[in-house]
């Protein structure tokens, strides 16, 4: 067989096959993305105008003791940053600590993705800090509505706890 039998399209099909086998799409990724897209479409439907924060940093600490794990996510928007620290305890439930910088008093809503109808509502203090406890493992988004109505609400993409 001469190598000229291999057309460009034929070779690219082999490349697709090689990568599909070698680095397959993670299990459940499409389903997670469906849940995210559906959730966002529901927000668009009710015309919720909010600024989508971008994840700019993620770090994991091995907290060590009794199977606890902690990680920190930093999100950035045009005018503010949001830092989230999630700590999962031995019982599997997580505690989420948040800091808004610059410090902004907000109503904070944490909602599950896909939407189970369950949300956790807290407020951030004048230093911009808040905490949510008892979160079961899953995907969540955090939405913040500043008390100052002149400031647009903002929210995070979904992240896994």
């Amino acid at each position: 067989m001469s190598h000229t039998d291999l057309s460009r399209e034929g070779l690219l099909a082999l490349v697709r096959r090689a990568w599909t086998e070698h680095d397959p799409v993670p299990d459940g990724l499409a389903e997670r993305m469906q849940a995210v897209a559906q959730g966002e479409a529901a927000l668009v439907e009710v015309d919720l105008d909010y600024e989508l924060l971008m994840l700019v940093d993620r770090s994991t600490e091995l907290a060590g003791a009794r199977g606890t794990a902690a990680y920190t996510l930093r999100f950035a928007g045009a005018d503010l940053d949001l830092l989230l620290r999630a700590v999962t305890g031995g019982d599997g439930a997580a505690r989420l600590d948040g800091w808004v910088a610059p410090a902004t008093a907000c109503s904070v809503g944490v909602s599950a993705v896909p939407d189970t109808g369950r949300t956790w509502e807290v407020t951030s203090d004048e230093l911009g800090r808040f905490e949510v406890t008892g979160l079961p493992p899953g995907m969540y988004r955090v939405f913040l509505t500043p008390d100052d109505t002149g400031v647009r609400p903002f929210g995070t993409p979904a992240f896994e706890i």
Partner: protein
Amino acid sequence: MWAEAEERFRGWVNGATGDDGLDGLVRVMTPVLWHVVRAYRLEQDAAEDVIQTTWLALVRRRDAIEDPAAVGGWLTTTARREAWRTSSATRRAVPTEDETIALHLPRQRSAETAALESEEADRLWLAVDTLPERCRRLLRIVAFENRPDYSEVAATLDMPVGSIGPTRGRCLAKLRVALLQTGALS
């Protein structure tokens, strides 16, 4: 696949739900986005974040896509830009060489068939893996995208604009040789 994406995008705009609408679009295009984004050497977490950002952007800016046939290209371009931004903004990118080489075979095959197919897959992977890294990344993007804009791809792979066409040709030639050498074609 691009036609399937277009059809589902149209369906979604016209109010279809489930696999005829947004869910179907996400199902069809997420694997493509995965391979394009992973060509930027992002870890799994970071790659998933980029893909999520892409879907959120699509839902938020649906009206900006006037031609439903353009939805696939819009998604891959958005994902590629975001992957590039993320890979240059963080030092979390890792070379793919460090990752575990794993074979993922469909279940329920006879042992003999599985062994034969596994060997074939091994040889195919070996051929792809012997390519220089820039070739592997470029061919992965070109293989999964539908006629990407070369000047954009060049910028994100740190290659001179105008060199992509010739580089792609050289990479494909190298792949042909590698396939013959590893016996993947016999």
